[in-house]
């Protein structure tokens, strides 16, 4: 003890040292305090923001796309829950065992699952990783009952667009696809992000904005492992607006059934307002496949085969109208006064112009023919004469007036205009003057004339509704989830054709005769209790000589056969439905297409579908 007692000198010295130490301590604590001041006050808000960033994730919630219904409210397109098989990497005890157990439960692609699990292990441990999208009901049931054996497995649900009747009305409904880079940049798709599905064609495209609804979102608090702790705030997604079509499901089904195995199109329309009742094109496709994915063969067939199933032939198929065009020529002749209803012309089966010879389809001729008979029996010679009297430009004027050779305005994408030739057009397009013989073939709807099945439907409707050309429409209403209508159907009159009603009556009577008169060309569309009016048409694919040569060798090859047209309106005196049918390479319109029209009319008028 004595030895360690301070002597005064060293004690003074030691106290001095302690004072230095105290100053040192104060300085160091000052530095620490300044550091904390710097972190918490100077940069406090910066670090506060960083801590918020750390914990808050934004998660988007998909909206439910609007439902699409037929005219009587039956659902055609809806969203169904799609079950995805996911895993939470952190909760998997043993990947090998899990994979083995999954393999026993269903037909899963084990190699891809294995890679996905392996990749997931390096990501966020609590972020679910999808192993298989849209598992089947059976797989779902199996997985749910074995949940205890499958640690880490999780089933998530999301809405998936589903087309209840598969390919039914595929062209008209359209399909969904991922938004393209270009579309995103165009700004035409607000509130849409990369990877979103948008309507690419058909109704899905036309009403994309309304069907889409509003994206919802959640602010979720997550921990450092990415595990969801709680929802901080949420704005629920807004369901899209529902679309009700003018299309009748039964009629659409019938039309598609009639087209089965054929190439062609059927359009049924209400002549009084332009509402489309059915719009079918064959071959068709199933829009569901654009969501679930194609197998290679189906896809190849879709894009590269000559069948072009993606084309909607009702709007994009352009064909010569054949004898249907005679209606135009007849109306033009009457209105222009170049012929009277009673004037008869003689048909001996042949018509000569210069050195050219033009035949009637009836080899030995019809004899004396007036306008009514010419239409009923579809005499070519009568219309050669009438066409020559009118000249091509006058014919063209009436054709266009009646809605041919131009887009009908049905907003379904890609509609083709067809073609109504004039002398001016010929000069411009080909650089050579119009030939008289071309007028002759134009008069029976050949030469350069091209129309679409949809145009034929609007045109025939105009003839029967008193001369009103309506814009065809597909939508009855579009309604927001709250019940507010965004859109309501109103007939849109494009023009009145300006032909005297009595002339229209004459033609209507003749067309009723074409179906109901025993000499008529369209008798196959005749119904016992309903007066159907109609006109056949046969569009030549190759010239007569080639056809003849082919015939000499036996049966004409399919691709050389004529396209078969039929357009019908019923009931003739108070029309409620127009049906336009085109069968590619179907041969004669009277035999191939008329029965289809008849079936549709029968189904539609026998059952009072209309309000």
């Amino acid at each position: 003890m004595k030895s360690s007692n301070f002597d005064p000198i060293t004690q003074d010295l030691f106290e001095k040292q302690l004072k230095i130490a105290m100053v040192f301590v104060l300085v160091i604590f000052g530095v620490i305090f300044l550091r904390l001041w710097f972190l918490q006050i100077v940069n406090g808000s910066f670090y506060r923001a960083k801590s918020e960033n750390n914990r808050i994730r934004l998660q988007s919630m998909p909206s439910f796309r609007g439902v699409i219904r037929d005219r009587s409210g039956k659902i055609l397109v809806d969203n169904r829950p799609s079950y995805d098989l996911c895993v939470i990497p952190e909760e998997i005890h043993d990947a090998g065992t899990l994979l083995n157990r999954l393999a026993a439960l269903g037909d899963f692609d084990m190699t891809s699952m294995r890679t996905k699990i392996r990749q997931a292990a390096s990501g966020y441990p609590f972020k679910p990783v999808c192993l298989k999208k849209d598992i089947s009901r059976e797989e779902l049931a199996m997985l749910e009952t074995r949940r205890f054996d499958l640690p880490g497995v999780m089933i998530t649900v999301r809405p998936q667009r589903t087309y209840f009747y598969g390919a039914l009305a595929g062209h008209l409904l359209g399909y969904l696809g991922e938004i393209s880079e270009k579309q995103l940049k165009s700004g035409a798709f607000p509130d849409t992000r990369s990877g979103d599905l948008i309507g690419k064609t058909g109704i899905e495209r036309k009403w994309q904005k309304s069907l889409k609804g509003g994206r919802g979102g959640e602010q979720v608090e997550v921990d450092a492992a990415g595990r969801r702790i709680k929802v901080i705030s949420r704005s629920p997604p807004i369901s899209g607006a529902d679309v009700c079509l003018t299309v009748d499901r039964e009629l659409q089904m019938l039309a598609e059934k009639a087209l089965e195995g054929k190439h062609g199109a059927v359009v049924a329309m209400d002549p009084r307002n332009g509402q489309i009742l059915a719009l079918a094109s064959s071959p068709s496709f199933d829009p569901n496949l654009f969501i679930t994915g194609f197998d290679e063969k189906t896809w190849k067939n879709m894009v590269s085969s000559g069948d072009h199933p993606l084309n909607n032939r009702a709007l994009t198929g352009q064909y010569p109208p054949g004898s249907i065009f005679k209606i135009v020529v007849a109306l033009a002749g009457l209105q222009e006064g170049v012929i009277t209803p009673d004037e008869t012309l003689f048909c001996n089966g042949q018509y000569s112009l210069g050195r050219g010879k033009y035949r009637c389809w009836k080899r030995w001729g019809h004899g004396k023919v007036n306008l009514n008979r010419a239409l009923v029996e579809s005499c070519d010679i009568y219309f050669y004469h009438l066409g020559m009297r009118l000249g091509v430009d006058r014919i063209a004027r009436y054709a266009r007036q009646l809605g041919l050779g131009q887009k009908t305005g049905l907003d379904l994408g890609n509609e083709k205009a067809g073609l109504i030739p004039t002398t001016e057009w010929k000069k411009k397009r080909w650089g050579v003057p119009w030939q008289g013989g071309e007028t002759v073939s134009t008069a029976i709807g050949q030469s350069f004339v091209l129309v679409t099945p949809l145009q034929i439907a609007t045109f025939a409707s105009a003839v029967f509704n008193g001369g009103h050309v309506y814009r065809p429409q597909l939508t009855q209403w579009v309604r927001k989830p709250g019940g507010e209508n965004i859109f309501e159907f109103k007939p849109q009159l494009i023009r009145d054709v300006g032909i005297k009603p009595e002339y229209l009556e004459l033609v209507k009577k003749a067309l009723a005769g074409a179906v109901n008169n025993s000499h008529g060309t369209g008798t196959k569309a005749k119904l016992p209790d309903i007066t159907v009016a109609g006109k056949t048409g046969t569009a030549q694919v190759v010239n007569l000589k080639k056809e003849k040569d082919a015939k000499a060798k036996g049966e004409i090859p399919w691709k050389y056969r004529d396209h078969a047209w039929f357009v019908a309106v019923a009931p003739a005196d108070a029309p409620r439905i127009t049906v336009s049918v085109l069968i590619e390479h179907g041969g004669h319109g009277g035999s191939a297409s008329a029965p289809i029209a008849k079936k549709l009319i029968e189904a539609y008028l026998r059952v009072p579908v209309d309000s």
Partner: protein
Amino acid sequence: MLDRRLIQNFDWVLLLLLLLLAGISILNLYSATYAIREVGGSRIFMKQFYWFLIGFGVCLVMITFNYYYLERLAYPAYFLTVALLMIVLVAGKVMSGSQRWLTLGPLVFQPSELAKISMVLVLAKFFSDRGDVVEYRLRDLWQPFILILIPCALILKEPDLGTALFVGVVSFSMILLVKVNRKSILIFVGVCVLAAPVIWFGMKDYQQRRILTFLQPDTEPLGAGYHINQSKIAIGSGQFWGKGYLKGTQTRLHFLPEQHTDFAFSVFAEEWGLAGVTVLLLLYLFLVLWGLYIAKGSKDRFGAILAAGIVGIVFWQVVINVGMVTGLLPVVGIPLLLFSYGGSSLISTMAAMGLLMNISMRRFMFQ
């Protein structure tokens, strides 16, 4: 031994400081382990509470005898520590790559904790024996250097860079306190600068990486720099008033690593802000200044140097730990004394505090 005078001289200030720190520590540990309370978190918090009770018991034991007897025990304690440090290298428990723990029945403890206090003790003894020296020169210091070097090297071998450096820093500050000739200091610093590259290449990979990430924490935001960054976010986001008790998101959502041990201070800073942290730092500052005051008041040389050494332990732990979690110093794994979770550290700290109290109580006594 405990006569009336002792009770009269009992250091209530020191006891109050310790109780306050213990209270805040337990309060904070409850929050740090709140998010994991269902998986053993509440056990951690309760355990620390019991450790504190034991700690205060140890503290009381430490004041019952006159610290004078420790002079005789200084060297034996030192050699026992060295022996234990050697045993731990052979028979120690290996945890996460280093061999730091010794198992004695149900007890698991770190001999390196013991090293801190026996180092202080042995140096206090060494310098008090040479009471007549006014200014030490380098050549007078070869013995203390060896005394320091042996345990430091053994701890470094475990490997535990943090504790080895800590023991070194505390020891050197004691040497500086007893006054070293200025020329000697300059020579020593020069030697250290020259030796730095040698030490650098002798370090383990992870040790080198820690120093590198300290220098540039943003280069490895998900690797070693992650800890520093998340700690800075936690502290900074507390701003002035803090996020509120149990409301620290960095803590609750596990962004903050080691929250109940090395980064307990960050938890506190996040939830209580600069306001709370200032109070906490003032408590530590008072503790340190009070310790120096005790050293100054000690009537004998051994007690004075011992008290100063204990103050050194307190001071440097606070500085290194807070410096580390605020990004001023590299992450070396030094807990904050009386605040971080950990039994061994708490018991040895409380023992040291008991000694300090012992010296404080006996400063007016002449025997």
